[in-house]
């Protein structure tokens, strides 16, 4: 059979495109003429056309996030784990999974969205603009402090040797973040200048590194068990947190930054489970007294009104956090304070200002302000 430029081989090669209606009109006509007298091609054409019917758009699965803990709990009651997950690493495990699921749902274009990072520095609101990949890099860099404490590789140390005067191991969260952004080229402007394919590759690399490190952290914590709960993790500038609290801090940061990303790409993002949120609020409440004391020493908060005789009970601040995950905390401060759980978390993350949080509060203005500013100052980049 001679059919001008369309021989059997060429027509056969067109069958896929034909089934998808992706040929030029004259090619379509030539294929269809051929099918009437070539049985093998007619068979294949039919099969491929049927296969096209099986293609359909990716559904957004919209799995209920609460499902995860339910399924995992069910499994663990049916077979007790030989190596359980320490309780203090569970919120981190859950928050990393939630952020990962959000990243999974995001479309290609969402990765190019600018994200605003907000925190309180020197009692003033600070904002930094970065890309989604930049936020992931920030989480990767700061989570790296825990990796170092557990003897895992530092995501930063990969190419550059540590500066002798500022060894990487004690660098601050902000310093580490800036270093990683420089190394990886994550700034929003730099990302925008890249072709889409390179931006996607960069985002994909950041995400893989971050997720791989979260898995390694959770796994190592499980192996080390209770023994490492009190291991001190250096946070730079002499500050430390015991590992159990560092995991809670990172869970909190993961949630807040996932929320930043969700806002930037206009996706809904719900708070953690009340139980996990309670643990995060508890950490902030426990950090408040020392933060306030440091602020008093540096003159940023008023000194206590009355001196208490040695050994006598001092005044306490009754911190009442309302809503899911809330509770009551009694702190050695000077005034009562009541906040809604989410608002308290937003304040501690530097996402709402102390002035906004102060609206409508009763009590001694100065003491309430001290408390609100101290809470906001827990935030950092």
């Amino acid at each position, binding site marked *: 059979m001679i059919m001008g430029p369309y021989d059997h081989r060429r027509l056969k090669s067109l069958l896929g495109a034909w089934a998808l209606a*992706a040929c030029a009109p004259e090619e379509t006509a030539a294929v269809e003429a051929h099918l009437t007298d070539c049985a093998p091609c007619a068979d294949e054409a039919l099969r491929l056309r049927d296969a096209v019917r099986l293609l359909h758009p990716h559904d957004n*699965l919209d799995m209920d996030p609460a*499902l995860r803990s339910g399924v995992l709990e069910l499994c663990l009651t049916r077979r007790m784990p030989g190596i359980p997950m320490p309780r203090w690493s569970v919120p981190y495990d859950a928050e990393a999974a939630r952020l990962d699921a959000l990243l*999974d749902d995001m479309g290609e274009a969402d990765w190019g969205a600018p994200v605003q990072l907000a925190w309180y520095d020197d009692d003033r609101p600070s904002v930094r603009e970065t890309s989604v990949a930049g936020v992931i890099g920030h989480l990767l860099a700061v989570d790296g402090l825990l990796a170092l404490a557990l003897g895992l590789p530092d995501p930063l140390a990969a190419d550059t040797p540590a500066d002798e005067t500022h060894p990487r191991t004690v660098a601050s969260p902000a310093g580490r973040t800036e270093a990683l952004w420089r190394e990886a080229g994550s700034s929003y402007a730099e990302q925008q200048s890249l072709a889409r394919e390179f931006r996607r590759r960069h985002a994909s690399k950041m995400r893989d590194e971050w997720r791989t490190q979260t898995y390694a952290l959770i796994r190592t914590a499980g192996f080390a068990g209770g023994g490492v709960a009190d291991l001190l993790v250096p946070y730079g500038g002499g500050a430390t947190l015991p590992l159990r609290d560092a995991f809670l801090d990172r869970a909190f940061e993961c949630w807040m930054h996932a929320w930043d990303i969700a806002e930037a790409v206009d996706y809904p993002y719900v708070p953690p489970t009340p139980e996990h949120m309670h643990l995060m609020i508890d950490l902030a409440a426990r950090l408040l007294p020392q933060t306030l004391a440091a602020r008093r020493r540096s003159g940023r908060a008023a000194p206590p009104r009355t001196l208490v005789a040695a050994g006598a009970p001092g005044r306490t601040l009754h911190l009442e956090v309302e809503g899911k995950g809330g509770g009551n905390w009694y702190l050695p401060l000077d005034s009562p304070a009541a906040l809604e759980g989410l608002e308290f978390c937003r304040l501690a993350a530097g996402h709402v200002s102390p002035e906004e949080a102060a609206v409508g509060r009763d009590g001694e203005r100065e003491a309430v302000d001290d408390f609100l500013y101290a809470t906001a100052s827990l935030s950092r980049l």
Partner: protein
Amino acid sequence: MAHGTGPHGTGQGAFPPRWNRKMQQRLARGEAAALSELYDRFAPLVYGLALRVLENEEEANGVLSEVFSYVWQHPDAYDPKRGQLRSFLAGLAHKHAVRRLRWAVIQAGAAGEIADSEERIRAVTAAARADYIVTSMPEPLRAALELAYFKRRDYRQTAAELGVSADEARRRLRLGLQMLATAYTEAGRPS
């Protein structure tokens, strides 16, 4: 089609044999962290396949629980020598989903419906297998199908967007559909 950026999350793409082996060992040791990781990597796959068969979220949730608790309780049921953990889980998801579908049909009663139901089970099985095939096929084939089918590009435009020759675009579209067509033949086999 999935937007996933890597082998994480949706469980797309191949995992190295070593990863499959190690995960199996970790599950056998009873590492709770391994169970979490397994869930995060494959829950969307299991849930998506179950939903395609059952078209009911609550029922798909049931399959999700059954599949993960089965693997956790029977870590030795998976043999890394016989393939990817991912396809083992897809197989389990399918088995549990079809079992639920049959049960729902039996409960609904009518004899005529039971006869029709085998036809329906074949159809949803093909659809679920097709989903799995699409997520497992090499990325270049998936990208070509996505452009030609979802974005309505002809094969020359597809070639231009992918930066390949027109010959290569035709080859990818044909090969992609041939892989997809196996969903029908496999659906005919008893699972």
